[in-house]
């Protein structure tokens, strides 16, 4: 058996699971998006854009903003872990940053529901420090809560990937640049970040698509309008049994997510040529 055939044979079972349990239902839902009362048409999409254009924009803005913040935070954390010269401070940060990494999204939703609410711990602490009065407190359980929850949960994961890639870099160029008088910030953005750009992009893309498909966080934090597409899909199915519009919303999310996955494919192809 040639190595090529053997390779395909070994990958096939795993691919079959994806094909049968994901691609097939995905096609079923894509077909369903164009089905109105048994015949094909654009009805579901006109209804979707009439009702949910605001939520589509809301979702894109929230997820993009969260991705940008996650990227900045991970570069900052990874950079400090690589360049920080106080070993005590570095190990404190190493200890601190990863706590939220494996906390399930549904738990994150519940945590933020109590922490960010009007009488949550964040407001209570600000009140007891004298920064505001109890009457000034506002609930952060809207778009800010969702962004906070996403950044809180996803940053450790991306930072772990980025810090790992930074740690395996060749230290010589970094030391050389430092010896020539380059500031740490300059070393970080001109020498380190370009070399870990692929890892950073992979981490951010994984985060982007994960955030696009999380249902529990928007349901727990902000279920009123405008809300995220996942909450709309659940609502369409649970409240109306309207699978057509739900499938159309799903297809729109797929287009948004796959445009990001396309970037990954282009980067990985460019690397190999």
């Amino acid at each position, binding site marked *: 058996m040639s190595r090529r055939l053997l390779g395909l044979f*070994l990958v096939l079972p795993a691919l079959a699971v994806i094909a049968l349990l994901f691609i097939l*239902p995905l096609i*079923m839902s894509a077909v369903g998006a164009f089905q109105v009362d048994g015949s094909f048409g654009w009805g579901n999409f006109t209804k979707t854009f009439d009702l949910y254009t605001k939520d589509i924009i809301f979702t894109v803005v929230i997820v993009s903003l969260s991705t940008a913040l996650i990227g900045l935070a991970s570069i900052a954390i990874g950079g400090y872990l690589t360049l920080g010269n106080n070993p005590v401070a570095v190990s404190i940060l190493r200890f601190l940053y990863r706590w939220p990494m494996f906390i*399930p999204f549904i738990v994150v939703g519940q945590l933020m529901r109590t*922490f960010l609410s009007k009488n949550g711990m964040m407001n209570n602490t600000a009140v007891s420090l004298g920064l505001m009065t109890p009457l000034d407190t506002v609930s952060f359980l809207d778009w800010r809560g969702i962004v906070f929850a996403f950044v809180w949960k996803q940053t450790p994961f991306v930072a772990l990937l980025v810090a790992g890639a930074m740690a395996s870099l060749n230290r010589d160029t970094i030391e050389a640049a430092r010896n020539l008088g380059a500031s740490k910030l300059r070393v970080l953005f001109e020498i380190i970040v370009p070399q870990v750009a692929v890892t950073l992009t992979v981490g951010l893309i*994984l985060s982007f698509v994960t955030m696009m498909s999380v249902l529990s966080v928007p349901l727990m934090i902000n279920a009123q309008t405008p809300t995220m597409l996942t909450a709309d899909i659940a609502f369409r199915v649970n409240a109306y049994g309207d699978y057509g519009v739900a499938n159309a919303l799903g297809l729109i999310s797929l287009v948004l997510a796959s445009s990001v996955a396309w970037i990954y494919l282009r980067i990985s192809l460019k690397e190999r040529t």
Partner: protein
Amino acid sequence: MTALRNNLSALWWVPRGIIFGLLAFFIFGPLFNMLLWTVTEKWYFPHTFPLEYGFSSWEKVFAPRGGALESLGNSLVVALLTVAVALALAIPAGYALARLKLPLRGVILLAFLIPQAFPNLTVYVNIARIFYEIGLNGTIPGVVLVHVSHGLVYAVWIATAAFSAIDPELEQAARNIGAGPLRTFRDVTLPLAAPGLMASAIFVFLESLDEFTGSFFVGAPDVNMLPLLLYTTASGGNYQIASITALLLLVPSLVFMLVVERFLKADVLSRVGQ
């Protein structure tokens, strides 16, 4: 001069202390707030701390009719089975992707990302329809299969990275002294990749524990899982029981967080997704 320099470097602890303090508050604050809720009897606006503490909610959760024990058992059984199935699929696939020349390698890697790339809700609705017809809906194997499709991206990507981080010369050496390909894989490659594979098992386990949408459509109401219990109690406004369920889901996550770097080394990490 050295005394002055020491003083200056000590001064750096002021900005560091402020930043680490804020970081610690925003990381541990939500967790501490949840812990308070698990032992709260009475707490309302505008009080900073609960007015009465007690364990009555714990008794309610662990009462035979509370449902938490059944959900906990189901969640653990499903997660362990998911790990077993996912690794059985990911080890051969990861090896092939790391070592053998495959056509369209990038596309194959990307295929495993698909379940993470699509709001899985509509997909799970359609899976539930298929499973209903073949009698898998509302069964543990049905939920396990859904979780496997969801967790395979971690299993395959990390397994691929773990295998490609191994020096091919070690395998070559084993082959040169007469070991067959299977023996080489079993005695050389697999033990060397074991820490990475362990890490991928951890990711799959946690993904399964975390999974909410698929369990809801395929499992409920016959197979109750912890995330489902958390959601129903939280939307019912019972912060105490929701927080206790959240704590049950949290403990394994935090334990794994503390040990994961023992398994996931930098050389493996830098190869994830490549």
